[in-house]
Protein backbone atom coordinates (compact mmCIF):
# COMPACT_ATOMS: atom_id res chain seq x y z
CA UNK A 1 0.00 0.00 0.00
CA UNK A 2 1.60 3.26 -1.17
CA UNK A 3 0.42 6.40 0.53
CA UNK A 4 0.73 10.10 -0.15
CA UNK A 5 3.14 10.93 2.65
CA UNK A 6 3.83 14.63 2.42
CA UNK A 7 1.84 17.63 1.39
CA UNK A 8 1.34 18.82 -2.14
CA UNK A 9 3.75 21.31 -3.67
CA UNK A 10 0.62 23.32 -4.58
CA UNK A 11 -0.82 24.26 -1.19
CA UNK A 12 -4.25 25.24 -2.55
CA UNK A 13 -4.61 21.70 -3.94
CA UNK A 14 -3.80 20.30 -0.50
CA UNK A 15 -6.40 22.62 1.03
CA UNK A 16 -9.03 21.45 -1.44
CA UNK A 17 -8.32 17.79 -0.62
CA UNK A 18 -8.60 18.55 3.09
CA UNK A 19 -11.81 20.46 2.45
CA UNK A 20 -13.21 17.48 0.52
CA UNK A 21 -12.56 15.11 3.42
CA UNK A 22 -14.03 17.62 5.89
CA UNK A 23 -17.10 17.90 3.69
CA UNK A 24 -17.57 14.09 3.84
CA UNK A 25 -17.14 14.13 7.62
CA UNK A 26 -19.73 16.90 8.01
CA UNK A 27 -22.15 15.11 5.73
CA UNK A 28 -21.56 11.91 7.72
CA UNK A 29 -22.46 13.75 10.92
CA UNK A 30 -25.69 15.02 9.37
CA UNK A 31 -26.62 11.53 8.20
CA UNK A 32 -25.89 9.94 11.59
CA UNK A 33 -28.12 12.54 13.21
CA UNK A 34 -30.86 11.86 10.64
CA UNK A 35 -30.90 8.11 11.34
CA UNK A 36 -30.78 8.67 15.09
CA UNK A 37 -33.61 11.24 15.05
CA UNK A 38 -35.72 9.22 12.62
CA UNK A 39 -35.49 6.21 14.93
CA UNK A 40 -36.29 8.33 17.97
CA UNK A 41 -39.28 9.82 16.16
CA UNK A 42 -40.42 6.31 15.24
CA UNK A 43 -40.14 4.72 18.68
CA UNK A 44 -41.71 7.74 20.39
CA UNK A 45 -44.18 8.25 17.54
CA UNK A 46 -43.01 11.87 17.56
CA UNK A 47 -44.50 13.47 14.45
CA UNK A 48 -42.82 16.84 15.04
CA UNK A 49 -39.37 15.26 15.11
CA UNK A 50 -40.25 13.21 12.03
CA UNK A 51 -41.09 16.47 10.19
CA UNK A 52 -37.71 17.91 11.17
CA UNK A 53 -35.93 14.82 9.78
CA UNK A 54 -37.84 15.20 6.48
CA UNK A 55 -36.93 18.89 6.24
CA UNK A 56 -33.27 18.31 7.13
CA UNK A 57 -32.90 15.79 4.33
CA UNK A 58 -32.82 18.71 1.87
CA UNK A 59 -29.62 19.92 3.58
CA UNK A 60 -28.05 16.47 3.11
CA UNK A 61 -29.02 16.53 -0.58
CA UNK A 62 -27.48 20.01 -0.93
CA UNK A 63 -24.34 18.78 0.77
CA UNK A 64 -24.05 15.93 -1.71
CA UNK A 65 -24.51 18.26 -4.68
CA UNK A 66 -21.86 20.55 -3.21
CA UNK A 67 -19.42 17.67 -2.90
CA UNK A 68 -20.10 16.51 -6.46
CA UNK A 69 -19.40 19.99 -7.78
CA UNK A 70 -16.23 20.25 -5.72
CA UNK A 71 -14.97 16.86 -6.94
CA UNK A 72 -15.78 17.56 -10.61
CA UNK A 73 -14.06 20.93 -10.37
CA UNK A 74 -10.95 19.35 -8.83
CA UNK A 75 -10.81 16.68 -11.54
CA UNK A 76 -11.09 19.36 -14.24
CA UNK A 77 -8.60 21.79 -12.73
CA UNK A 78 -6.09 19.55 -10.92
CA UNK A 79 -6.13 16.41 -13.07
CA UNK A 80 -5.52 14.26 -10.00
CA UNK A 81 -3.40 11.13 -10.09
CA UNK A 82 -2.99 7.94 -8.04
CA UNK A 83 -4.10 8.29 -4.39
CA UNK A 84 -5.54 11.79 -5.02
CA UNK A 85 -7.57 10.50 -7.96
CA UNK A 86 -8.86 7.59 -5.89
CA UNK A 87 -9.71 9.90 -3.01
CA UNK A 88 -11.69 12.32 -5.17
CA UNK A 89 -13.55 9.69 -7.19
CA UNK A 90 -14.33 7.56 -4.13
CA UNK A 91 -15.54 10.65 -2.27
CA UNK A 92 -18.27 11.01 -4.89
CA UNK A 93 -19.32 7.41 -4.15
CA UNK A 94 -19.22 7.95 -0.39
CA UNK A 95 -21.35 11.09 -0.70
CA UNK A 96 -23.87 9.17 -2.82
CA UNK A 97 -24.07 6.43 -0.19
CA UNK A 98 -24.48 8.99 2.57
CA UNK A 99 -27.22 10.73 0.63
CA UNK A 100 -29.00 7.39 0.26
CA UNK A 101 -28.72 6.73 4.00
CA UNK A 102 -30.28 10.18 4.47
CA UNK A 103 -33.12 9.08 2.19
CA UNK A 104 -33.60 5.97 4.34
CA UNK A 105 -33.93 8.20 7.42
CA UNK A 106 -36.43 10.39 5.58
CA UNK A 107 -38.40 7.31 4.56
CA UNK A 108 -38.56 6.15 8.21
CA UNK A 109 -39.75 9.64 9.21
CA UNK A 110 -42.50 9.56 6.57
CA UNK A 111 -43.66 6.17 7.83
CA UNK A 112 -43.66 7.55 11.38
CA UNK A 113 -46.19 10.17 10.30
CA UNK A 114 -48.52 7.34 9.27
CA UNK A 115 -48.15 5.27 12.43
CA UNK A 116 -50.67 5.68 15.26
CA UNK A 117 -49.41 4.97 18.76
CA UNK A 118 -52.09 2.42 19.59
CA UNK A 119 -51.97 -1.38 19.67
CA UNK A 120 -48.21 -1.75 19.18
CA UNK A 121 -46.17 -3.59 21.72
CA UNK A 122 -43.08 -1.68 22.97
CA UNK A 123 -40.95 -4.76 22.36
CA UNK A 124 -41.57 -4.30 18.63
CA UNK A 125 -40.01 -0.88 18.81
CA UNK A 126 -37.10 -2.17 20.83
CA UNK A 127 -36.10 -4.50 17.98
CA UNK A 128 -36.04 -1.57 15.54
CA UNK A 129 -34.18 0.60 18.06
CA UNK A 130 -31.53 -2.10 18.47
CA UNK A 131 -31.19 -2.39 14.72
CA UNK A 132 -30.86 1.38 14.42
CA UNK A 133 -28.07 1.39 17.03
CA UNK A 134 -26.22 -1.32 15.12
CA UNK A 135 -26.53 0.59 11.83
CA UNK A 136 -25.41 3.85 13.43
CA UNK A 137 -22.32 2.12 14.81
CA UNK A 138 -21.64 0.73 11.32
CA UNK A 139 -22.01 4.13 9.62
CA UNK A 140 -19.84 5.84 12.22
CA UNK A 141 -17.09 3.19 11.97
CA UNK A 142 -17.23 3.32 8.15
CA UNK A 143 -16.76 7.11 8.20
CA UNK A 144 -13.80 6.81 10.54
CA UNK A 145 -12.19 4.50 8.01
CA UNK A 146 -12.56 7.13 5.28
CA UNK A 147 -10.12 9.36 7.16
CA UNK A 148 -7.93 6.64 8.68
CA UNK A 149 -8.23 3.11 7.38
CA UNK A 150 -7.76 0.18 9.74
CA UNK A 151 -7.94 -2.90 7.53
CA UNK A 152 -9.06 -5.27 10.29
CA UNK A 153 -11.71 -2.77 11.32
CA UNK A 154 -12.91 -2.42 7.71
CA UNK A 155 -13.28 -6.19 7.40
CA UNK A 156 -15.13 -6.31 10.74
CA UNK A 157 -17.65 -3.72 9.46
CA UNK A 158 -18.39 -5.85 6.39
CA UNK A 159 -18.82 -8.96 8.51
CA UNK A 160 -21.01 -7.10 10.98
CA UNK A 161 -23.43 -6.25 8.15
CA UNK A 162 -24.39 -9.92 8.08
CA UNK A 163 -25.58 -9.51 11.68
CA UNK A 164 -27.70 -6.53 10.62
CA UNK A 165 -29.21 -8.64 7.83
CA UNK A 166 -29.89 -11.48 10.27
CA UNK A 167 -31.56 -9.08 12.70
CA UNK A 168 -33.80 -7.81 9.91
CA UNK A 169 -34.90 -11.36 9.10
CA UNK A 170 -35.59 -11.99 12.76
CA UNK A 171 -37.69 -8.81 13.00
CA UNK A 172 -39.50 -9.79 9.83
CA UNK A 173 -40.58 -13.07 11.42
CA UNK A 174 -41.52 -11.31 14.63
CA UNK A 175 -43.71 -8.78 12.83
CA UNK A 176 -45.43 -11.59 10.94
CA UNK A 177 -46.27 -13.24 14.23
CA UNK A 178 -47.81 -10.04 15.58
CA UNK A 179 -49.79 -9.55 12.41
CA UNK A 180 -51.14 -13.10 12.56
CA UNK A 181 -51.98 -12.75 16.24
CA UNK A 182 -54.10 -9.66 15.70
CA UNK A 183 -55.02 -8.36 12.23
CA UNK A 184 -55.39 -4.84 13.68
CA UNK A 185 -51.58 -4.81 13.92
CA UNK A 186 -51.12 -5.31 10.20
CA UNK A 187 -50.95 -1.65 9.13
CA UNK A 188 -48.54 -0.48 11.82
CA UNK A 189 -46.43 -3.64 11.61
CA UNK A 190 -46.12 -3.19 7.86
CA UNK A 191 -44.82 0.35 8.42
CA UNK A 192 -42.36 -0.94 10.99
CA UNK A 193 -41.24 -3.69 8.67
CA UNK A 194 -40.47 -1.12 5.97
CA UNK A 195 -38.58 0.96 8.53
CA UNK A 196 -36.50 -2.09 9.45
CA UNK A 197 -35.86 -2.67 5.75
CA UNK A 198 -34.71 0.96 5.43
CA UNK A 199 -32.27 0.43 8.26
CA UNK A 200 -30.99 -2.78 6.70
CA UNK A 201 -30.36 -0.89 3.45
CA UNK A 202 -28.61 1.90 5.37
CA UNK A 203 -26.32 -0.83 6.74
CA UNK A 204 -25.55 -1.93 3.16
CA UNK A 205 -24.56 1.64 2.30
CA UNK A 206 -22.22 1.65 5.32
CA UNK A 207 -20.38 -1.34 3.86
CA UNK A 208 -20.19 0.48 0.50
CA UNK A 209 -18.55 3.40 2.32
CA UNK A 210 -15.98 1.17 3.96
CA UNK A 211 -15.23 -0.45 0.59
CA UNK A 212 -14.66 3.03 -0.86
CA UNK A 213 -12.40 3.87 2.10
CA UNK A 214 -10.37 0.71 1.44
CA UNK A 215 -10.06 1.63 -2.25
CA UNK A 216 -8.94 5.18 -1.42
CA UNK A 217 -6.14 3.96 0.80
CA UNK A 218 -5.00 0.83 -1.05
CA UNK A 219 -6.29 1.01 -4.64
CA UNK A 220 -7.59 -2.54 -4.09
CA UNK A 221 -11.01 -4.16 -3.68
CA UNK A 222 -11.99 -4.93 -0.08
CA UNK A 223 -14.13 -7.93 -1.06
CA UNK A 224 -11.08 -9.48 -2.79
CA UNK A 225 -9.05 -8.87 0.37
CA UNK A 226 -11.71 -10.56 2.53
CA UNK A 227 -11.85 -13.57 0.20
CA UNK A 228 -8.05 -13.75 0.18
CA UNK A 229 -7.99 -13.83 3.97
CA UNK A 230 -10.72 -16.48 4.07
CA UNK A 231 -8.73 -18.63 1.62
CA UNK A 232 -5.62 -18.26 3.77
CA UNK A 233 -7.54 -19.15 6.89
Amino acid at each position, binding site marked *: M*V*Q*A*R*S*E*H*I*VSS*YEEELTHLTRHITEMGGMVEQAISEATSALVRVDHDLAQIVIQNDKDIDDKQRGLDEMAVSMIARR*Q*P*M*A*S*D*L*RRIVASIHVATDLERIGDMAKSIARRTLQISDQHISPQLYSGVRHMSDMVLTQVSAALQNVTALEIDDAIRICEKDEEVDALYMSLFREFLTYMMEDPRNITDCTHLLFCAKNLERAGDHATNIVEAAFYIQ*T*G*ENLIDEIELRRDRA
Partner: protein
Amino acid sequence: MDIVQDKTAETAKSTPAPGTSDPGKRIRVSTRDVSVFYGEKQAMFDVSIDIPDRSVTSFIGPSGCGKSTFLRCINRMNDTIDGCRVSGVVELDGEDINRPDLDVVELRARVGMVFQKPNPFPKTIYQNVAYGPRIHGMTKNKAELDEIVVSSLQRAGLFEEVKDRLDQPGTGLSGGQQQRLCIARAIATRPEVLLMDEPCSALDPIATAIIEELIDELRENFTIVIVTHSMQQAARVSQKTAFFHLGKLIETGDTEQIFTNPKEQKTQDYITGRFG
Protein backbone atom coordinates in the same frame (compact mmCIF):
# COMPACT_ATOMS: atom_id res chain seq x y z
CA MET B 1 31.51 -11.92 -28.93
CA ASP B 2 30.60 -15.44 -29.95
CA ILE B 3 28.15 -15.60 -27.11
CA VAL B 4 26.47 -12.42 -28.30
CA GLN B 5 26.19 -13.74 -31.86
CA ASP B 6 24.76 -17.07 -30.71
CA LYS B 7 22.20 -15.26 -28.60
CA THR B 8 21.30 -13.02 -31.52
CA ALA B 9 20.81 -15.99 -33.81
CA GLU B 10 18.67 -17.77 -31.25
CA THR B 11 16.48 -14.70 -30.67
CA ALA B 12 16.10 -14.14 -34.40
CA LYS B 13 14.82 -17.69 -34.79
CA SER B 14 12.24 -17.35 -32.05
CA THR B 15 11.21 -13.82 -32.97
CA PRO B 16 8.21 -13.53 -35.30
CA ALA B 17 8.43 -11.19 -38.26
CA PRO B 18 7.43 -7.56 -37.60
CA GLY B 19 3.71 -7.03 -37.64
CA THR B 20 2.80 -10.67 -37.17
CA SER B 21 2.73 -10.88 -33.38
CA ASP B 22 0.14 -9.52 -30.98
CA PRO B 23 0.78 -5.83 -30.25
CA GLY B 24 2.34 -5.30 -26.84
CA LYS B 25 3.30 -8.95 -26.40
CA ARG B 26 6.58 -9.20 -28.25
CA ILE B 27 9.57 -7.33 -26.85
CA ARG B 28 11.09 -5.04 -29.46
CA VAL B 29 13.71 -3.22 -27.39
CA SER B 30 15.34 -4.73 -24.33
CA THR B 31 17.98 -3.14 -22.12
CA ARG B 32 19.99 -4.79 -19.36
CA ASP B 33 21.96 -2.90 -16.71
CA VAL B 34 22.44 0.18 -18.87
CA SER B 35 24.54 2.87 -17.23
CA VAL B 36 25.55 6.16 -18.81
CA PHE B 37 28.56 8.26 -17.81
CA TYR B 38 29.33 11.84 -18.78
CA GLY B 39 33.07 11.80 -18.15
CA GLU B 40 33.46 10.72 -14.53
CA LYS B 41 29.86 11.51 -13.62
CA GLN B 42 27.39 8.64 -13.75
CA ALA B 43 24.03 9.80 -15.12
CA MET B 44 22.14 6.49 -15.42
CA PHE B 45 22.36 3.51 -13.12
CA ASP B 46 21.75 -0.09 -14.28
CA VAL B 47 18.51 0.48 -16.18
CA SER B 48 16.83 -2.72 -17.36
CA ILE B 49 13.56 -2.44 -19.24
CA ASP B 50 11.63 -4.30 -21.94
CA ILE B 51 9.77 -2.18 -24.49
CA PRO B 52 6.92 -4.02 -26.20
CA ASP B 53 6.27 -4.02 -29.92
CA ARG B 54 3.59 -1.82 -31.51
CA SER B 55 2.63 0.01 -28.37
CA VAL B 56 3.51 3.33 -26.78
CA THR B 57 5.85 3.41 -23.81
CA SER B 58 6.26 6.70 -22.00
CA PHE B 59 9.21 7.80 -19.88
CA ILE B 60 8.32 10.24 -17.12
CA GLY B 61 10.30 11.83 -14.32
CA PRO B 62 11.56 15.17 -13.05
CA SER B 63 14.02 17.29 -15.05
CA GLY B 64 17.49 15.80 -15.07
CA CYS B 65 16.29 12.31 -14.11
CA GLY B 66 17.91 10.83 -17.23
CA LYS B 67 14.86 9.93 -19.28
CA SER B 68 16.11 11.72 -22.43
CA THR B 69 19.62 10.38 -21.87
CA PHE B 70 18.20 6.89 -21.67
CA LEU B 71 16.03 7.45 -24.76
CA ARG B 72 19.15 8.40 -26.70
CA CYS B 73 20.74 5.06 -25.72
CA ILE B 74 18.18 3.31 -27.90
CA ASN B 75 19.57 4.74 -31.16
CA ARG B 76 23.08 5.56 -29.95
CA MET B 77 22.55 9.30 -30.12
CA ASN B 78 24.80 9.55 -27.08
CA ASP B 79 27.71 8.60 -29.38
CA THR B 80 27.57 12.16 -30.66
CA ILE B 81 28.26 13.62 -27.19
CA ASP B 82 31.93 13.99 -26.25
CA GLY B 83 32.89 12.11 -23.10
CA CYS B 84 29.65 10.15 -22.96
CA ARG B 85 30.02 6.42 -22.32
CA VAL B 86 27.32 3.76 -22.21
CA SER B 87 27.70 0.36 -20.53
CA GLY B 88 25.29 -2.56 -20.39
CA VAL B 89 23.28 -4.13 -23.18
CA VAL B 90 20.71 -2.51 -25.46
CA GLU B 91 19.06 -4.97 -27.81
CA LEU B 92 16.84 -4.24 -30.79
CA ASP B 93 15.07 -7.43 -31.85
CA GLY B 94 17.62 -9.37 -29.83
CA GLU B 95 20.57 -7.69 -31.55
CA ASP B 96 23.11 -5.74 -29.46
CA ILE B 97 23.07 -2.23 -30.93
CA ASN B 98 26.35 -1.27 -29.24
CA ARG B 99 28.33 -3.82 -31.25
CA PRO B 100 31.39 -2.03 -32.70
CA ASP B 101 30.69 -3.36 -36.20
CA LEU B 102 27.11 -2.16 -36.26
CA ASP B 103 26.30 0.52 -38.84
CA VAL B 104 24.99 3.42 -36.75
CA VAL B 105 23.44 5.15 -39.75
CA GLU B 106 21.45 2.03 -40.53
CA LEU B 107 20.49 1.71 -36.85
CA ARG B 108 19.10 5.26 -36.83
CA ALA B 109 17.05 4.44 -39.91
CA ARG B 110 15.54 1.56 -37.92
CA VAL B 111 15.13 3.66 -34.80
CA GLY B 112 13.80 7.08 -35.84
CA MET B 113 13.70 10.11 -33.61
CA VAL B 114 11.53 13.19 -33.19
CA PHE B 115 12.80 16.02 -31.03
CA GLN B 116 11.31 18.55 -28.66
CA LYS B 117 11.59 21.46 -31.05
CA PRO B 118 10.44 20.85 -34.63
CA ASN B 119 13.62 20.87 -36.72
CA PRO B 120 12.77 20.60 -40.41
CA PHE B 121 15.67 20.93 -42.82
CA PRO B 122 15.83 24.29 -44.61
CA LYS B 123 14.51 22.52 -47.70
CA THR B 124 11.14 21.97 -49.33
CA ILE B 125 8.46 19.86 -47.66
CA TYR B 126 9.04 17.16 -50.27
CA GLN B 127 12.82 17.15 -49.79
CA ASN B 128 12.47 16.96 -46.00
CA VAL B 129 10.58 13.67 -46.28
CA ALA B 130 12.54 12.34 -49.27
CA TYR B 131 15.92 12.91 -47.61
CA GLY B 132 16.06 9.72 -45.53
CA PRO B 133 14.83 7.25 -48.19
CA ARG B 134 17.21 8.87 -50.67
CA ILE B 135 20.41 8.58 -48.56
CA HIS B 136 19.50 5.03 -47.56
CA GLY B 137 18.93 4.09 -51.21
CA MET B 138 15.45 2.84 -50.50
CA THR B 139 14.01 3.70 -53.89
CA LYS B 140 14.91 2.92 -57.49
CA ASN B 141 13.17 5.79 -59.17
CA LYS B 142 11.29 9.06 -58.67
CA ALA B 143 7.89 7.35 -58.73
CA GLU B 144 8.82 5.15 -55.79
CA LEU B 145 10.21 8.13 -53.90
CA ASP B 146 7.03 10.12 -54.58
CA GLU B 147 5.05 7.18 -53.24
CA ILE B 148 7.05 7.13 -49.98
CA VAL B 149 6.80 10.92 -49.54
CA VAL B 150 3.03 10.92 -50.06
CA SER B 151 2.37 7.89 -47.86
CA SER B 152 4.61 9.23 -45.08
CA LEU B 153 2.86 12.61 -45.15
CA GLN B 154 -0.49 10.84 -45.16
CA ARG B 155 0.46 8.68 -42.17
CA ALA B 156 1.66 11.79 -40.35
CA GLY B 157 -1.74 13.38 -41.02
CA LEU B 158 -0.20 16.27 -42.95
CA PHE B 159 -0.70 15.44 -46.61
CA GLU B 160 -4.09 17.08 -47.06
CA GLU B 161 -2.77 20.34 -45.59
CA VAL B 162 0.38 20.52 -47.73
CA LYS B 163 -0.38 18.60 -50.95
CA ASP B 164 -0.53 21.80 -53.01
CA ARG B 165 2.73 23.21 -51.67
CA LEU B 166 5.17 20.33 -51.47
CA ASP B 167 7.77 22.55 -53.12
CA GLN B 168 7.47 25.20 -50.40
CA PRO B 169 9.98 25.37 -47.53
CA GLY B 170 9.20 23.13 -44.55
CA THR B 171 10.22 25.94 -42.26
CA GLY B 172 7.21 27.96 -43.47
CA LEU B 173 4.72 25.61 -41.80
CA SER B 174 3.16 26.20 -38.38
CA GLY B 175 4.79 24.63 -35.30
CA GLY B 176 2.36 21.72 -35.17
CA GLN B 177 2.68 21.12 -38.92
CA GLN B 178 6.48 21.27 -38.68
CA GLN B 179 6.41 18.62 -35.95
CA ARG B 180 4.18 16.41 -38.10
CA LEU B 181 6.60 17.00 -40.98
CA CYS B 182 9.42 15.77 -38.71
CA ILE B 183 7.34 12.71 -37.86
CA ALA B 184 6.72 12.11 -41.59
CA ARG B 185 10.48 12.46 -42.15
CA ALA B 186 11.18 9.99 -39.33
CA ILE B 187 8.74 7.35 -40.58
CA ALA B 188 9.78 7.72 -44.24
CA THR B 189 12.70 5.35 -43.65
CA ARG B 190 10.19 2.80 -42.31
CA PRO B 191 11.73 2.51 -38.87
CA GLU B 192 10.78 -0.20 -36.41
CA VAL B 193 10.98 2.08 -33.43
CA LEU B 194 10.10 5.76 -33.13
CA LEU B 195 11.65 7.74 -30.29
CA MET B 196 9.95 11.00 -29.34
CA ASP B 197 11.65 13.41 -26.98
CA GLU B 198 8.93 15.74 -25.64
CA PRO B 199 7.38 16.11 -29.11
CA CYS B 200 4.55 18.38 -27.98
CA SER B 201 6.26 20.65 -25.48
CA ALA B 202 6.51 23.50 -28.00
CA LEU B 203 2.96 23.07 -29.33
CA ASP B 204 -0.43 24.52 -28.44
CA PRO B 205 -3.22 22.23 -27.13
CA ILE B 206 -4.84 21.69 -30.55
CA ALA B 207 -1.55 20.83 -32.26
CA THR B 208 -0.77 18.60 -29.26
CA ALA B 209 -4.09 16.79 -29.64
CA ILE B 210 -3.39 16.21 -33.35
CA ILE B 211 0.06 14.74 -32.55
CA GLU B 212 -1.44 12.55 -29.82
CA GLU B 213 -4.08 11.28 -32.23
CA LEU B 214 -1.28 10.58 -34.70
CA ILE B 215 0.75 8.67 -32.06
CA ASP B 216 -2.31 6.53 -31.39
CA GLU B 217 -2.59 5.70 -35.10
CA LEU B 218 1.14 5.13 -35.57
CA ARG B 219 1.32 2.56 -32.79
CA GLU B 220 -0.47 0.10 -35.05
CA ASN B 221 2.73 -0.13 -37.07
CA PHE B 222 5.52 1.24 -34.90
CA THR B 223 6.98 0.75 -31.48
CA ILE B 224 6.91 4.21 -29.92
CA VAL B 225 8.85 5.49 -26.95
CA ILE B 226 7.93 8.98 -25.79
CA VAL B 227 9.60 11.17 -23.21
CA THR B 228 7.16 13.65 -21.76
CA HIS B 229 6.94 16.10 -18.90
CA SER B 230 3.17 16.00 -19.07
CA MET B 231 1.87 13.14 -16.97
CA GLN B 232 -1.57 13.67 -18.47
CA GLN B 233 -0.05 13.14 -21.91
CA ALA B 234 1.69 9.96 -20.74
CA ALA B 235 -1.62 8.77 -19.31
CA ARG B 236 -3.45 9.60 -22.54
CA VAL B 237 -1.12 8.16 -25.16
CA SER B 238 0.85 5.30 -23.66
CA GLN B 239 0.13 1.71 -22.70
CA LYS B 240 3.28 1.32 -20.60
CA THR B 241 4.90 3.92 -18.38
CA ALA B 242 8.35 4.02 -16.83
CA PHE B 243 9.23 6.44 -14.04
CA PHE B 244 12.83 7.62 -13.70
CA HIS B 245 14.42 9.46 -10.79
CA LEU B 246 18.04 10.51 -10.34
CA GLY B 247 19.19 8.26 -13.17
CA LYS B 248 17.40 5.17 -11.89
CA LEU B 249 14.36 3.39 -13.23
CA ILE B 250 12.08 3.43 -10.19
CA GLU B 251 8.99 1.73 -11.54
CA THR B 252 7.58 0.45 -14.79
CA GLY B 253 4.15 -0.98 -15.47
CA ASP B 254 0.88 -0.63 -17.31
CA THR B 255 0.01 3.06 -17.63
CA GLU B 256 -3.34 2.59 -15.90
CA GLN B 257 -1.69 0.96 -12.90
CA ILE B 258 1.06 3.59 -12.65
CA PHE B 259 -1.44 6.46 -12.64
CA THR B 260 -4.09 4.94 -10.41
CA ASN B 261 -2.15 2.68 -8.05
CA PRO B 262 1.64 2.99 -8.27
CA LYS B 263 3.61 0.49 -6.22
CA GLU B 264 6.58 2.69 -5.34
CA GLN B 265 6.41 5.59 -2.91
CA LYS B 266 8.61 7.80 -5.14
CA THR B 267 6.29 7.28 -8.11
CA GLN B 268 3.28 8.11 -5.95
CA ASP B 269 4.91 11.29 -4.64
CA TYR B 270 5.99 12.45 -8.08
CA ILE B 271 2.77 11.88 -9.98
CA THR B 272 0.62 13.42 -7.26
CA GLY B 273 2.82 16.52 -7.08
CA ARG B 274 4.34 15.86 -3.66
CA PHE B 275 7.94 15.55 -4.68
CA GLY B 276 10.67 16.93 -2.51
